[in-house]
Protein backbone atom coordinates (compact mmCIF):
# COMPACT_ATOMS: atom_id res chain seq x y z
CA UNK A 1 0.00 0.00 0.00
CA UNK A 2 1.32 3.42 -0.96
CA UNK A 3 0.70 5.50 2.09
CA UNK A 4 0.97 9.28 2.10
CA UNK A 5 1.56 10.40 5.67
CA UNK A 6 1.37 13.94 6.97
CA UNK A 7 2.46 15.31 10.32
CA UNK A 8 -0.48 17.08 11.91
CA UNK A 9 0.00 20.14 14.08
CA UNK A 10 -2.32 20.41 17.08
CA UNK A 11 -2.97 23.87 18.51
CA UNK A 12 -5.08 24.08 21.68
CA UNK A 13 -6.53 20.66 21.02
CA UNK A 14 -7.55 21.35 17.40
CA UNK A 15 -5.85 20.86 14.04
CA UNK A 16 -4.01 23.90 12.79
CA UNK A 17 -5.06 25.42 9.43
CA UNK A 18 -1.65 24.44 8.00
CA UNK A 19 -2.52 20.81 8.71
CA UNK A 20 -5.68 21.15 6.64
CA UNK A 21 -3.53 22.47 3.78
CA UNK A 22 -1.21 19.47 4.13
CA UNK A 23 -4.24 17.19 4.06
CA UNK A 24 -5.23 18.91 0.82
CA UNK A 25 -1.97 18.28 -1.00
CA UNK A 26 -1.59 14.88 0.67
CA UNK A 27 -4.95 13.73 -0.66
CA UNK A 28 -3.95 14.74 -4.19
CA UNK A 29 -0.69 12.76 -3.94
CA UNK A 30 -2.43 9.73 -2.41
CA UNK A 31 -4.81 9.79 -5.38
CA UNK A 32 -1.92 9.92 -7.85
CA UNK A 33 -0.27 6.97 -6.09
CA UNK A 34 -3.50 4.98 -5.75
CA UNK A 35 -2.73 5.01 -2.09
CA UNK A 36 -4.18 6.18 1.17
CA UNK A 37 -3.81 9.37 3.16
CA UNK A 38 -2.90 9.12 6.81
CA UNK A 39 -1.99 11.52 9.59
CA UNK A 40 0.42 11.17 12.48
CA UNK A 41 -0.21 13.27 15.59
CA UNK A 42 2.22 13.73 18.47
CA UNK A 43 1.42 15.03 21.92
CA UNK A 44 0.50 14.10 25.44
CA UNK A 45 -3.13 13.56 24.50
CA UNK A 46 -4.36 13.95 20.93
CA UNK A 47 -7.64 11.97 20.83
CA UNK A 48 -9.82 14.92 19.93
CA UNK A 49 -7.51 16.09 17.15
CA UNK A 50 -7.35 12.48 15.87
CA UNK A 51 -11.13 12.36 15.52
CA UNK A 52 -10.99 15.71 13.78
CA UNK A 53 -8.39 14.38 11.31
CA UNK A 54 -10.71 11.47 10.48
CA UNK A 55 -13.46 13.97 9.77
CA UNK A 56 -11.18 15.58 7.18
CA UNK A 57 -10.83 12.35 5.28
CA UNK A 58 -7.73 10.66 6.72
CA UNK A 59 -7.97 6.91 6.15
CA UNK A 60 -5.83 6.33 9.22
CA UNK A 61 -4.68 8.50 12.09
CA UNK A 62 -1.67 7.43 14.14
CA UNK A 63 -1.75 8.72 17.70
CA UNK A 64 1.71 8.98 19.20
CA UNK A 65 1.02 9.90 22.80
CA UNK A 66 3.48 10.30 25.65
CA UNK A 67 3.88 12.75 28.56
CA UNK A 68 7.29 13.79 27.17
CA UNK A 69 5.59 14.88 23.95
CA UNK A 70 3.65 17.59 25.76
CA UNK A 71 5.15 20.72 24.26
CA UNK A 72 7.73 20.61 21.50
CA UNK A 73 11.07 19.06 22.34
CA UNK A 74 12.85 18.28 19.10
CA UNK A 75 14.95 15.39 20.46
CA UNK A 76 11.98 13.24 21.48
CA UNK A 77 9.83 14.38 18.57
CA UNK A 78 12.50 13.28 16.08
CA UNK A 79 12.91 9.95 17.90
CA UNK A 80 9.13 9.36 17.95
CA UNK A 81 8.76 10.21 14.26
CA UNK A 82 11.70 7.99 13.36
CA UNK A 83 10.05 5.08 15.18
CA UNK A 84 6.63 5.82 13.71
CA UNK A 85 8.01 6.01 10.15
CA UNK A 86 9.92 2.74 10.60
CA UNK A 87 6.67 1.10 11.61
CA UNK A 88 4.30 2.77 9.12
CA UNK A 89 6.75 2.82 6.20
CA UNK A 90 5.00 5.63 4.34
CA UNK A 91 5.83 6.18 0.71
CA UNK A 92 5.57 9.96 1.16
CA UNK A 93 5.85 11.95 4.38
CA UNK A 94 4.99 15.66 4.48
CA UNK A 95 5.21 18.25 7.20
CA UNK A 96 4.68 21.98 7.33
CA UNK A 97 7.61 24.33 6.79
CA UNK A 98 6.95 25.80 10.22
CA UNK A 99 9.58 26.54 12.86
CA UNK A 100 9.11 23.00 14.18
CA UNK A 101 8.99 21.40 10.72
CA UNK A 102 12.21 23.20 9.78
CA UNK A 103 13.92 21.61 12.77
CA UNK A 104 12.39 18.13 12.53
CA UNK A 105 12.71 17.61 8.77
CA UNK A 106 16.49 17.53 8.27
CA UNK A 107 17.13 15.53 11.43
CA UNK A 108 14.48 12.97 10.52
CA UNK A 109 15.79 12.70 6.95
CA UNK A 110 19.25 11.95 8.30
CA UNK A 111 18.00 9.27 10.68
CA UNK A 112 15.84 7.57 8.08
CA UNK A 113 18.62 7.72 5.48
CA UNK A 114 16.46 9.64 3.04
CA UNK A 115 16.60 13.10 1.43
CA UNK A 116 14.42 16.07 2.30
CA UNK A 117 13.33 19.04 0.20
CA UNK A 118 12.31 22.04 2.30
CA UNK A 119 9.74 24.80 1.78
CA UNK A 120 7.99 23.21 -1.22
CA UNK A 121 5.34 25.20 -3.11
CA UNK A 122 4.18 22.38 -5.33
CA UNK A 123 4.31 18.60 -5.14
CA UNK A 124 3.36 15.94 -7.65
CA UNK A 125 4.16 12.34 -8.48
CA UNK A 126 6.35 11.43 -11.43
CA UNK A 127 4.23 8.82 -13.24
CA UNK A 128 7.39 7.15 -14.57
CA UNK A 129 8.89 6.09 -11.26
CA UNK A 130 6.37 7.12 -8.62
CA UNK A 131 8.86 9.52 -7.02
CA UNK A 132 7.87 12.88 -5.58
CA UNK A 133 8.57 15.94 -7.73
CA UNK A 134 9.39 18.71 -5.27
CA UNK A 135 9.01 22.29 -6.51
CA UNK A 136 10.78 24.90 -4.45
CA UNK A 137 11.68 28.55 -5.02
CA UNK A 138 15.47 28.89 -4.75
CA UNK A 139 18.00 31.72 -4.73
CA UNK A 140 15.68 33.79 -2.59
CA UNK A 141 12.93 33.36 -5.20
CA UNK A 142 14.93 34.23 -8.30
CA UNK A 143 14.38 30.75 -9.69
CA UNK A 144 12.03 27.84 -9.21
CA UNK A 145 13.57 24.40 -9.08
CA UNK A 146 12.05 20.94 -9.22
CA UNK A 147 13.99 18.32 -7.28
CA UNK A 148 13.75 14.57 -7.31
CA UNK A 149 15.37 12.38 -4.70
CA UNK A 150 15.71 8.66 -4.07
CA UNK A 151 14.88 7.03 -0.76
CA UNK A 152 11.83 6.43 1.39
CA UNK A 153 9.89 8.04 2.74
CA UNK A 154 9.84 10.73 0.07
CA UNK A 155 10.18 13.64 2.46
CA UNK A 156 9.23 17.30 2.08
CA UNK A 157 8.31 20.32 4.17
CA UNK A 158 5.53 22.39 2.63
CA UNK A 159 5.14 26.18 2.55
CA UNK A 160 2.04 27.53 4.26
CA UNK A 161 -0.83 29.34 2.51
CA UNK A 162 0.00 27.74 -0.85
CA UNK A 163 -2.36 24.79 -0.89
CA UNK A 164 -6.11 24.92 -0.32
CA UNK A 165 -7.22 23.53 3.03
CA UNK A 166 -9.51 20.47 2.79
CA UNK A 167 -13.15 20.61 3.75
CA UNK A 168 -14.66 18.20 6.25
CA UNK A 169 -16.16 14.97 4.86
CA UNK A 170 -18.05 12.02 6.28
CA UNK A 171 -14.82 10.29 7.32
CA UNK A 172 -14.64 6.65 8.31
CA UNK A 173 -10.93 6.32 8.97
CA UNK A 174 -9.47 4.34 11.84
CA UNK A 175 -7.42 5.65 14.74
CA UNK A 176 -4.33 3.63 15.60
CA UNK A 177 -2.18 3.95 18.73
CA UNK A 178 1.56 3.97 18.20
CA UNK A 179 3.47 3.90 21.48
CA UNK A 180 6.79 5.73 21.26
CA UNK A 181 9.85 4.31 23.00
CA UNK A 182 11.23 7.54 24.43
CA UNK A 183 12.63 8.63 27.79
CA UNK A 184 14.17 11.66 29.51
CA UNK A 185 17.72 10.61 28.64
CA UNK A 186 17.05 11.36 24.95
CA UNK A 187 16.49 15.04 25.68
CA UNK A 188 19.85 16.73 25.09
CA UNK A 189 18.51 20.26 25.00
CA UNK A 190 16.91 21.40 28.23
CA UNK A 191 14.19 24.05 28.17
CA UNK A 192 14.65 26.81 30.73
CA UNK A 193 11.43 28.56 29.86
CA UNK A 194 9.42 30.21 27.15
CA UNK A 195 9.08 33.96 26.80
CA UNK A 196 5.98 35.12 24.94
CA UNK A 197 6.46 38.35 23.10
CA UNK A 198 3.86 40.71 21.90
CA UNK A 199 4.46 40.26 18.23
CA UNK A 200 2.88 42.22 15.42
CA UNK A 201 0.58 40.05 13.31
CA UNK A 202 1.94 41.46 10.06
CA UNK A 203 -0.08 39.07 7.93
CA UNK A 204 -3.26 40.68 9.30
CA UNK A 205 -2.23 44.21 8.27
CA UNK A 206 -4.26 46.12 5.70
CA UNK A 207 -1.48 48.64 5.19
CA UNK A 208 2.22 48.01 5.83
CA UNK A 209 4.76 50.83 5.98
CA UNK A 210 8.16 49.17 5.70
CA UNK A 211 11.72 50.42 6.01
CA UNK A 212 15.12 49.08 4.96
CA UNK A 213 18.80 49.91 5.03
CA UNK A 214 18.10 53.12 3.09
CA UNK A 215 16.60 54.64 6.25
CA UNK A 216 20.25 54.94 7.30
CA UNK A 217 19.45 55.11 11.01
CA UNK A 218 17.21 53.61 13.64
CA UNK A 219 15.33 56.90 13.99
CA UNK A 220 14.04 56.44 10.45
CA UNK A 221 11.50 54.03 11.91
CA UNK A 222 10.18 56.82 14.16
CA UNK A 223 9.32 58.75 11.03
CA UNK A 224 7.64 55.66 9.54
CA UNK A 225 5.71 55.30 12.79
CA UNK A 226 4.41 58.85 12.31
CA UNK A 227 3.40 58.04 8.75
CA UNK A 228 1.69 54.92 10.00
CA UNK A 229 -0.23 57.01 12.55
CA UNK A 230 -1.34 59.46 9.86
CA UNK A 231 -2.56 56.58 7.68
CA UNK A 232 -4.32 54.94 10.65
CA UNK A 233 -6.85 57.77 10.68
CA UNK A 234 -8.22 56.48 7.39
CA UNK A 235 -7.02 52.90 7.02
CA UNK A 236 -7.47 50.01 9.44
CA UNK A 237 -4.63 47.85 10.74
CA UNK A 238 -1.61 49.87 9.64
CA UNK A 239 1.61 48.16 10.72
CA UNK A 240 5.35 48.67 10.43
CA UNK A 241 7.40 46.26 8.32
CA UNK A 242 11.13 45.93 7.79
CA UNK A 243 13.79 44.17 5.74
CA UNK A 244 16.15 41.54 7.11
CA UNK A 245 19.01 44.04 6.99
CA UNK A 246 17.10 46.53 9.16
CA UNK A 247 16.53 43.74 11.70
CA UNK A 248 20.21 42.69 11.56
CA UNK A 249 21.18 46.27 12.31
CA UNK A 250 19.08 46.12 15.45
CA UNK A 251 16.79 48.94 14.34
CA UNK A 252 13.63 46.89 14.82
CA UNK A 253 12.56 43.47 16.11
CA UNK A 254 12.25 40.49 13.78
CA UNK A 255 8.47 40.15 14.11
CA UNK A 256 8.37 43.14 11.72
CA UNK A 257 10.51 41.35 9.12
CA UNK A 258 8.87 40.86 5.72
CA UNK A 259 10.25 38.23 3.37
CA UNK A 260 11.36 34.68 2.89
CA UNK A 261 12.62 34.22 6.45
CA UNK A 262 10.19 36.74 7.91
CA UNK A 263 6.45 37.03 7.31
CA UNK A 264 4.87 36.64 3.87
CA UNK A 265 2.18 39.29 3.52
CA UNK A 266 -0.47 40.50 1.07
CA UNK A 267 -1.87 43.78 2.42
CA UNK A 268 -4.02 46.21 0.43
CA UNK A 269 -1.21 48.77 0.40
CA UNK A 270 2.50 48.24 0.93
CA UNK A 271 4.66 51.34 1.31
CA UNK A 272 8.38 50.72 0.99
CA UNK A 273 10.76 53.36 2.26
CA UNK A 274 14.51 53.08 1.74
CA UNK A 275 14.27 49.51 0.50
CA UNK A 276 16.33 48.61 -2.57
CA UNK A 277 14.44 45.36 -3.13
CA UNK A 278 16.45 42.22 -2.42
CA UNK A 279 14.60 39.27 -3.88
CA UNK A 280 14.08 37.51 -0.55
CA UNK A 281 12.25 40.64 0.63
CA UNK A 282 10.21 41.04 -2.57
CA UNK A 283 8.84 37.49 -2.46
CA UNK A 284 7.39 38.35 0.95
CA UNK A 285 5.39 41.39 -0.20
CA UNK A 286 4.80 40.99 -3.93
CA UNK A 287 1.23 39.84 -3.37
CA UNK A 288 0.31 43.26 -1.95
CA UNK A 289 -2.52 44.83 -3.94
CA UNK A 290 -0.86 48.24 -4.34
CA UNK A 291 2.84 48.86 -3.87
CA UNK A 292 4.26 52.33 -3.29
CA UNK A 293 7.98 53.00 -3.15
CA UNK A 294 9.97 55.92 -1.81
CA UNK A 295 13.68 55.64 -2.59
CA UNK A 296 16.49 57.94 -3.68
CA UNK A 297 17.80 55.45 -6.24
CA UNK A 298 15.53 55.56 -9.25
CA UNK A 299 17.18 52.46 -10.68
CA UNK A 300 16.50 50.23 -7.68
CA UNK A 301 14.53 47.00 -8.05
CA UNK A 302 11.76 48.13 -5.74
CA UNK A 303 10.43 50.63 -8.31
CA UNK A 304 10.20 47.83 -10.89
CA UNK A 305 7.70 45.94 -8.76
CA UNK A 306 5.76 49.01 -7.60
CA UNK A 307 2.60 50.73 -8.82
CA UNK A 308 3.63 54.21 -7.65
CA UNK A 309 6.98 55.66 -6.79
CA UNK A 310 8.70 58.77 -5.54
CA UNK A 311 12.40 59.09 -6.28
CA UNK A 312 13.38 61.31 -3.39
CA UNK A 313 15.07 61.34 0.00
CA UNK A 314 12.50 59.94 2.41
CA UNK A 315 13.56 62.44 5.07
CA UNK A 316 12.22 65.19 2.84
CA UNK A 317 9.17 63.49 1.41
CA UNK A 318 7.73 61.58 4.37
CA UNK A 319 7.15 64.63 6.65
CA UNK A 320 5.56 66.45 3.69
CA UNK A 321 3.42 63.40 2.99
CA UNK A 322 2.25 63.20 6.60
CA UNK A 323 1.22 66.85 6.44
CA UNK A 324 -0.66 66.38 3.14
CA UNK A 325 -2.40 63.29 4.48
CA UNK A 326 -3.64 65.28 7.47
CA UNK A 327 -5.14 67.80 5.03
CA UNK A 328 -6.57 65.38 2.48
CA UNK A 329 -7.74 62.31 4.37
Amino acid at each position, binding site marked *: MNEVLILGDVKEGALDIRTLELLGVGRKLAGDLNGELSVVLLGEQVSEAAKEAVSYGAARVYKVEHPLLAGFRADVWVASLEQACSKIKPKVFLMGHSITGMELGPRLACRLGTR*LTTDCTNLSIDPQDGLLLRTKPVCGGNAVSVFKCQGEPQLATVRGKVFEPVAAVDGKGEIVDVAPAIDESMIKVESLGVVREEAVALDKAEVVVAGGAGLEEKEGFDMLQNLSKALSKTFGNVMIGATRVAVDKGWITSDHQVGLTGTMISPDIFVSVGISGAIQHIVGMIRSKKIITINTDRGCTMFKVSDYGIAEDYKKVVPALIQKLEELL
Partner: protein
Amino acid sequence: MKELEIIVCAKQIPDPEAPLSDVRVDAEKMEVIVDAPQVISPFDENALEAALRIKEEMSAKITVLSMGKRVSDTVMRKNLAAGADKLILLQDEAFENLDSHSIAAVLAEAIKKIGEYDLILTGRQAGDWDFGQVGLILAELLVLPCVSLAREIKVKDGNVLVKKNILGGYEEVKAKMPALVTVSNEVGELRYISKTKMLAMLRGAASIPTWKSGDFVSAGAKLQKMNIVELSSPPDMRRDCEILEGSTPAEKAEKLAAIFRSLR
Protein backbone atom coordinates in the same frame (compact mmCIF):
# COMPACT_ATOMS: atom_id res chain seq x y z
CA MET B 1 40.66 27.50 32.02
CA LYS B 2 40.86 25.76 28.69
CA GLU B 3 40.33 27.88 25.60
CA LEU B 4 36.88 27.46 24.05
CA GLU B 5 37.09 26.00 20.53
CA ILE B 6 34.41 27.36 18.21
CA ILE B 7 33.94 26.22 14.63
CA VAL B 8 31.86 28.38 12.29
CA CYS B 9 30.72 26.93 8.97
CA ALA B 10 30.47 29.68 6.36
CA LYS B 11 29.46 29.37 2.74
CA GLN B 12 30.54 31.58 -0.11
CA ILE B 13 27.67 32.60 -2.39
CA PRO B 14 26.86 35.27 -4.99
CA ASP B 15 25.50 38.34 -3.20
CA PRO B 16 21.84 37.52 -2.41
CA GLU B 17 21.08 41.25 -2.24
CA ALA B 18 21.93 41.55 -5.95
CA PRO B 19 19.29 43.37 -8.03
CA LEU B 20 16.89 41.21 -10.04
CA SER B 21 18.45 42.28 -13.31
CA ASP B 22 21.71 40.60 -12.34
CA VAL B 23 20.11 37.18 -12.03
CA ARG B 24 19.38 34.92 -14.96
CA VAL B 25 18.02 31.41 -15.15
CA ASP B 26 19.50 29.09 -17.76
CA ALA B 27 16.72 26.53 -18.01
CA GLU B 28 18.66 24.46 -20.53
CA LYS B 29 21.75 24.00 -18.38
CA MET B 30 19.60 24.17 -15.25
CA GLU B 31 21.78 26.83 -13.71
CA VAL B 32 21.10 30.12 -11.97
CA ILE B 33 23.58 32.67 -13.21
CA VAL B 34 24.15 35.57 -10.85
CA ASP B 35 26.26 38.44 -12.02
CA ALA B 36 27.15 39.68 -8.55
CA PRO B 37 30.22 39.66 -6.32
CA GLN B 38 30.83 36.66 -4.08
CA VAL B 39 30.09 37.20 -0.40
CA ILE B 40 29.78 35.23 2.82
CA SER B 41 26.21 33.94 3.13
CA PRO B 42 24.38 36.44 5.42
CA PHE B 43 23.22 33.97 8.09
CA ASP B 44 26.77 32.57 8.26
CA GLU B 45 27.99 36.11 8.93
CA ASN B 46 25.46 36.24 11.77
CA ALA B 47 26.96 32.96 13.05
CA LEU B 48 30.45 34.47 12.99
CA GLU B 49 29.17 37.52 14.86
CA ALA B 50 27.69 35.23 17.54
CA ALA B 51 31.08 33.51 17.85
CA LEU B 52 32.90 36.84 18.12
CA ARG B 53 30.57 37.97 20.91
CA ILE B 54 31.32 34.78 22.86
CA LYS B 55 35.02 35.45 22.34
CA GLU B 56 34.60 38.88 23.92
CA GLU B 57 33.48 37.17 27.12
CA MET B 58 36.06 34.40 27.39
CA SER B 59 39.20 32.94 25.95
CA ALA B 60 38.13 31.36 22.68
CA LYS B 61 39.53 30.33 19.33
CA ILE B 62 37.33 30.66 16.24
CA THR B 63 37.97 28.46 13.22
CA VAL B 64 35.95 29.15 10.08
CA LEU B 65 35.34 26.27 7.67
CA SER B 66 34.26 27.07 4.15
CA MET B 67 33.50 24.44 1.59
CA GLY B 68 32.87 24.41 -2.13
CA LYS B 69 34.11 23.58 -5.58
CA ARG B 70 36.01 26.86 -5.57
CA VAL B 71 36.22 29.09 -2.54
CA SER B 72 37.81 32.49 -2.87
CA ASP B 73 40.49 33.09 -0.33
CA THR B 74 40.01 36.87 -0.72
CA VAL B 75 36.26 36.74 -0.01
CA MET B 76 36.64 34.44 2.96
CA ARG B 77 39.52 36.38 4.52
CA LYS B 78 36.82 38.77 5.69
CA ASN B 79 36.22 36.20 8.45
CA LEU B 80 39.78 36.73 9.66
CA ALA B 81 39.54 40.51 9.35
CA ALA B 82 36.41 40.38 11.52
CA GLY B 83 38.27 38.48 14.22
CA ALA B 84 38.26 34.75 13.44
CA ASP B 85 41.54 33.06 14.31
CA LYS B 86 41.77 30.51 11.56
CA LEU B 87 40.24 29.87 8.17
CA ILE B 88 40.28 26.47 6.48
CA LEU B 89 39.04 26.10 2.91
CA LEU B 90 37.59 22.73 1.90
CA GLN B 91 37.93 22.90 -1.83
CA ASP B 92 37.48 20.21 -4.42
CA GLU B 93 35.80 19.62 -7.79
CA ALA B 94 33.97 16.78 -6.04
CA PHE B 95 32.16 19.31 -3.81
CA GLU B 96 30.20 20.88 -6.66
CA ASN B 97 26.39 20.94 -6.29
CA LEU B 98 26.28 18.40 -3.47
CA ASP B 99 23.00 17.79 -1.70
CA SER B 100 22.58 18.94 1.91
CA HIS B 101 23.29 15.52 3.41
CA SER B 102 26.53 15.16 1.48
CA ILE B 103 27.67 18.68 2.39
CA ALA B 104 27.03 17.88 6.05
CA ALA B 105 28.93 14.59 5.65
CA VAL B 106 31.98 16.40 4.22
CA LEU B 107 31.87 19.03 6.98
CA ALA B 108 31.55 16.27 9.59
CA GLU B 109 34.74 14.64 8.31
CA ALA B 110 36.60 17.94 8.30
CA ILE B 111 35.46 18.63 11.86
CA LYS B 112 36.56 15.16 12.95
CA LYS B 113 39.98 15.91 11.44
CA ILE B 114 40.15 19.17 13.41
CA GLY B 115 39.38 17.02 16.41
CA GLU B 116 38.87 19.43 19.31
CA TYR B 117 35.76 21.59 19.45
CA ASP B 118 33.18 22.79 21.94
CA LEU B 119 30.71 24.65 19.79
CA ILE B 120 29.79 24.51 16.12
CA LEU B 121 27.81 27.39 14.63
CA THR B 122 26.14 27.49 11.22
CA GLY B 123 23.74 29.93 9.59
CA ARG B 124 20.09 28.86 9.67
CA GLN B 125 20.12 28.46 5.89
CA ALA B 126 22.30 29.48 2.96
CA GLY B 127 21.35 32.60 1.03
CA ASP B 128 21.50 30.84 -2.34
CA TRP B 129 19.51 27.58 -2.15
CA ASP B 130 17.65 28.26 1.13
CA PHE B 131 17.59 24.56 2.07
CA GLY B 132 18.20 25.05 5.81
CA GLN B 133 19.40 21.51 6.37
CA VAL B 134 23.18 21.31 6.66
CA GLY B 135 23.55 22.44 10.28
CA LEU B 136 20.86 20.10 11.60
CA ILE B 137 22.15 17.09 9.64
CA LEU B 138 25.71 17.88 10.76
CA ALA B 139 24.55 17.70 14.39
CA GLU B 140 22.95 14.32 13.70
CA LEU B 141 26.09 12.97 12.02
CA LEU B 142 28.33 14.14 14.86
CA VAL B 143 25.70 13.06 17.45
CA LEU B 144 25.66 16.49 19.07
CA PRO B 145 22.94 18.33 20.98
CA CYS B 146 21.37 20.68 18.48
CA VAL B 147 19.63 24.03 18.88
CA SER B 148 18.17 25.78 15.85
CA LEU B 149 17.25 29.39 15.02
CA ALA B 150 19.28 31.08 17.74
CA ARG B 151 18.84 34.79 18.38
CA GLU B 152 21.34 34.93 21.25
CA ILE B 153 24.11 32.54 22.31
CA LYS B 154 26.08 32.49 25.55
CA VAL B 155 28.52 29.99 27.00
CA LYS B 156 28.68 29.19 30.70
CA ASP B 157 30.17 26.33 32.74
CA GLY B 158 30.51 23.94 29.83
CA ASN B 159 26.98 24.65 28.59
CA VAL B 160 25.67 26.67 25.72
CA LEU B 161 22.69 28.87 26.63
CA VAL B 162 20.55 29.88 23.70
CA LYS B 163 17.54 32.04 23.10
CA LYS B 164 15.89 30.36 20.14
CA ASN B 165 13.04 31.61 18.01
CA ILE B 166 9.69 29.95 18.49
CA LEU B 167 6.26 30.97 17.26
CA GLY B 168 5.24 34.13 19.13
CA GLY B 169 8.39 34.58 21.16
CA TYR B 170 11.51 32.74 22.18
CA GLU B 171 12.59 29.82 24.30
CA GLU B 172 15.63 29.77 26.53
CA VAL B 173 17.41 26.45 26.29
CA LYS B 174 20.58 24.90 27.66
CA ALA B 175 22.74 22.14 26.17
CA LYS B 176 25.96 20.57 27.31
CA MET B 177 28.86 21.21 24.97
CA PRO B 178 30.06 20.07 22.52
CA ALA B 179 26.92 21.22 20.76
CA LEU B 180 25.77 22.69 17.48
CA VAL B 181 23.66 25.83 17.10
CA THR B 182 22.11 27.21 13.90
CA VAL B 183 21.97 31.00 13.90
CA SER B 184 19.21 33.35 12.78
CA ASN B 185 19.64 36.99 11.80
CA GLU B 186 18.24 38.35 15.09
CA VAL B 187 21.74 37.74 16.47
CA GLY B 188 22.74 40.89 14.60
CA GLU B 189 24.88 41.77 11.62
CA LEU B 190 28.59 41.08 11.44
CA ARG B 191 30.55 43.87 13.10
CA TYR B 192 32.03 46.70 11.09
CA ILE B 193 35.45 45.95 9.66
CA SER B 194 37.62 48.97 8.92
CA LYS B 195 39.10 49.31 5.45
CA THR B 196 42.60 49.28 6.93
CA LYS B 197 41.92 46.00 8.71
CA MET B 198 40.37 44.46 5.62
CA LEU B 199 43.25 45.54 3.37
CA ALA B 200 45.83 44.35 5.88
CA MET B 201 44.16 40.97 5.94
CA LEU B 202 43.91 40.76 2.15
CA ARG B 203 47.55 41.68 1.72
CA GLY B 204 48.56 39.68 4.76
CA ALA B 205 50.91 36.80 4.47
CA ALA B 206 48.71 34.46 6.50
CA SER B 207 48.55 31.32 4.41
CA ILE B 208 45.11 29.77 4.29
CA PRO B 209 45.12 26.00 4.62
CA THR B 210 43.21 24.35 1.80
CA TRP B 211 42.08 20.76 2.14
CA LYS B 212 41.24 18.68 -0.89
CA SER B 213 38.69 15.90 -0.63
CA GLY B 214 41.45 13.28 -0.47
CA ASP B 215 42.98 15.02 2.56
CA PHE B 216 40.07 14.29 4.87
CA VAL B 217 37.03 12.68 3.24
CA SER B 218 37.13 8.91 3.70
CA ALA B 219 37.34 6.96 0.46
CA GLY B 220 34.06 5.15 1.10
CA ALA B 221 32.01 8.34 1.48
CA LYS B 222 29.18 8.41 -1.04
CA LEU B 223 28.68 12.02 -2.05
CA GLN B 224 25.48 12.76 -3.94
CA LYS B 225 24.74 15.75 -6.13
CA MET B 226 21.41 17.49 -5.73
CA ASN B 227 19.09 16.26 -8.44
CA ILE B 228 17.40 19.12 -10.25
CA VAL B 229 14.98 17.93 -12.92
CA GLU B 230 13.70 21.35 -13.94
CA LEU B 231 14.71 24.94 -13.36
CA SER B 232 12.67 27.95 -14.41
CA SER B 233 12.26 31.67 -13.82
CA PRO B 234 9.61 32.69 -11.34
CA PRO B 235 6.47 34.38 -12.67
CA ASP B 236 7.23 37.94 -13.75
CA MET B 237 6.77 40.22 -10.76
CA ARG B 238 7.24 43.54 -12.53
CA ARG B 239 4.57 46.24 -12.50
CA ASP B 240 4.27 49.47 -14.44
CA CYS B 241 5.45 52.00 -11.95
CA GLU B 242 4.12 55.53 -12.19
CA ILE B 243 6.86 57.81 -10.90
CA LEU B 244 5.30 60.83 -9.25
CA GLU B 245 7.11 63.92 -10.45
CA GLY B 246 7.24 67.39 -8.97
CA SER B 247 9.64 70.26 -8.53
CA THR B 248 9.75 69.90 -4.74
CA PRO B 249 9.39 66.96 -2.32
CA ALA B 250 6.15 68.59 -1.11
CA GLU B 251 4.67 68.49 -4.62
CA LYS B 252 5.50 64.81 -4.98
CA ALA B 253 4.11 64.14 -1.51
CA GLU B 254 0.87 65.88 -2.44
CA LYS B 255 0.42 63.60 -5.44
CA LEU B 256 1.04 60.56 -3.28
CA ALA B 257 -1.43 61.78 -0.66
CA ALA B 258 -4.03 62.04 -3.44
CA ILE B 259 -3.31 58.44 -4.40
CA PHE B 260 -3.81 57.35 -0.81
CA ARG B 261 -7.13 59.15 -0.86
CA SER B 262 -8.17 57.27 -4.01
CA LEU B 263 -7.26 53.98 -2.31
CA ARG B 264 -9.50 54.54 0.71
